[in-house]
């Protein structure tokens, strides 16, 4: 019995002279939602295609629920639901016809088949478009058809390549809620370049660039890498006197003071050394200088900054 639902062992993929993936290893357990982050062309999709058994790895392998995708692809594919990038589906088929085809390929018949299709349709709310050809559907519905197809057999492992790409904010929220609701008894990998999505659904985030894993941790741990982690943001009612900035800089544990945001002359970031908590000290100083504050808060850190730092650092 395998302990991990997904086990990736040193995956390497070359396309001719191009090294798309250069040795990625990790494991994902039940209950985890792993977010793949990375710039375009980082190797996210290539890695997912290898896990899903579409691409043959140049080296290494992936083990899905104990089944090696290179040795026993059929068994691995049975345990896996996959949403390819762009959610491709046969344009001339109706939603119901398409789901029926996938259900039959997955070996369901009769009542069992109908029950599964019905459950998938309800889960992603496809009711209104069952008899429409897929080519006439909006982007949001197409994506949901792709999701329904991946969920049909209630797999233990879900690989979703950009599941919310191109959806409007309401649809994004819906898909995230859906993923979160399934997370408890599955191992899920999603790829995205929307950083807020990582916060919203992922229990773990992995930054991939140039075919390598550059960071792997909880979203909180990634945020903690930000220089804005635990920075104090303060916004005063009136323009700040210049003396305030130098007074703040003189506080113990302050690394830097930066002007912030649109309220340039009224807002400041006080950046701590080693993520130390400066809030009481800053509040103290403000009241000593008689500042009227509109806002005073602790920053959690900025994933986009961390993402940029990690992915643009020297290769």
């Amino acid at each position, binding site marked *: 019995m395998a302990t991990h639902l997904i086990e990736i062992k040193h995956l390497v993929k070359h396309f001719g002279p191009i090294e798309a993936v250069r040795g990625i290893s990790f494991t994902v357990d039940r209950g985890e939602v792993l977010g793949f982050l990375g710039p375009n062309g980082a190797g996210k999709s290539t890695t997912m295609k290898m896990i899903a058994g*579409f*691409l043959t790895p140049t080296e290494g392998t992936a083990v899905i629920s104990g089944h090696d995708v290179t040795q026993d692809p059929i068994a691995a594919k049975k345990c896996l639901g996959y949403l*390819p990038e762009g959610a491709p589906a046969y344009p001339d088929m109706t939603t119901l016809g398409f789901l029926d085809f996938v259900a039959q*390929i997955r070996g369901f018949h009769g009542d069992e088949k109908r029950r599964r299709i019905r459950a998938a349709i309800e889960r992603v709310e496809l009711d209104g478009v069952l008899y429409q*050809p897929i080519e006439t559907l909006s982007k949001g519905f197409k994506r949901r058809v792709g999701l329904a197809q991946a969920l049909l057999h209630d797999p233990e492992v879900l690989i979703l390549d950009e599941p919310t790409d191109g959806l409007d904010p309401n649809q994004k929220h819906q898909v995230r809620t859906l993923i979160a609701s399934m997370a408890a008894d599955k191992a899920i990998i999603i790829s995205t370049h929307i950083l807020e999505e990582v916060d919203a659904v992922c229990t773990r985030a992995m930054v991939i660039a140039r075919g390598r894993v550059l960071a792997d941790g909880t979203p909180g741990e990634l945020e903690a890498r930000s220089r804005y982690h635990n920075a104090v943001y303060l916004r005063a009612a009136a323009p700040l006197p210049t003396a305030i900035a130098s007074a703040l800089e003189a506080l113990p544990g302050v690394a830097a003071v930066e002007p912030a945001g649109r309220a340039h002359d009224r807002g400041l970031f006080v950046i701590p050394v080693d993520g130390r908590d400066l809030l009481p000290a800053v509040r103290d100083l403000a009241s000593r200088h008689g500042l009227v504050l509109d806002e005073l808060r602790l920053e959690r850190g900025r994933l986009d900054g961390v993402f940029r730092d990690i992915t643009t650092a020297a290769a």
Partner: protein
Amino acid sequence: MGTIGVIFRRELVSYFTMPLAYVFIVIFLVLAGAMTFYMGGFFERGQADLQVFFNFHPFLYLFLIPALSMRLWAEERKTGTIELFLTLPITTPQAVLGKFLAAWVFTGIALALTFPFWLTVLILGHPDNGVILASYLGSFLMAGAFLAIGAAISAACKNQVIAFVLSATLCFVFVAAGSGIVLGPLQDWVPGSVVTATANLSFLQHFTAIERGVLDLRDLIYFGSVIVAFLFANTLIVELKKAD
């Protein structure tokens, strides 16, 4: 129903949800009729047989079958559905066979719809129904060989037009293998045995043999092996090129 059966059914049904099926069948029947009656002089011959009708089949298939086969894989690759299709729990040979059989049965349907020609000779005279049945069987087998060639080429192409042109060209080589246009350039520099072997690859030669009503096992094996060989190539090409 097995996996191949499920794929087969989806493919076959999809022909009839698109205009393709109807256009193909209508054009096939119209051209078969026009060639038989005008070019073949069906009535003027005064014979109750379908020989002129079947004589034109290789040339009809030459451009109609590639039009049918060009989309088999190229379209899946273009729209990206191949990634969905091949990550379902199926093997590549199952996918190749399911698609091929659906296309072959579809051409079989088009071929069966030519039955009024048979009715015509049946009403006008006393045809040798054995010869006609053998010819239909030969024509169906030859269509399968054309399709297998077209399917393999479609798997190598993302662009359907290129798939069409290449398939039609390769099919032409197979049809004309016994004639000067193919043998001429070979004769001067390859051994005679190779020339003979090439000539024996001719679709025309084997089809003409069947058309005479002689169901020789060798002709059946010939078309069968062309189909098997190209389906095997098709499987390899899909494995190699699916992600490009």
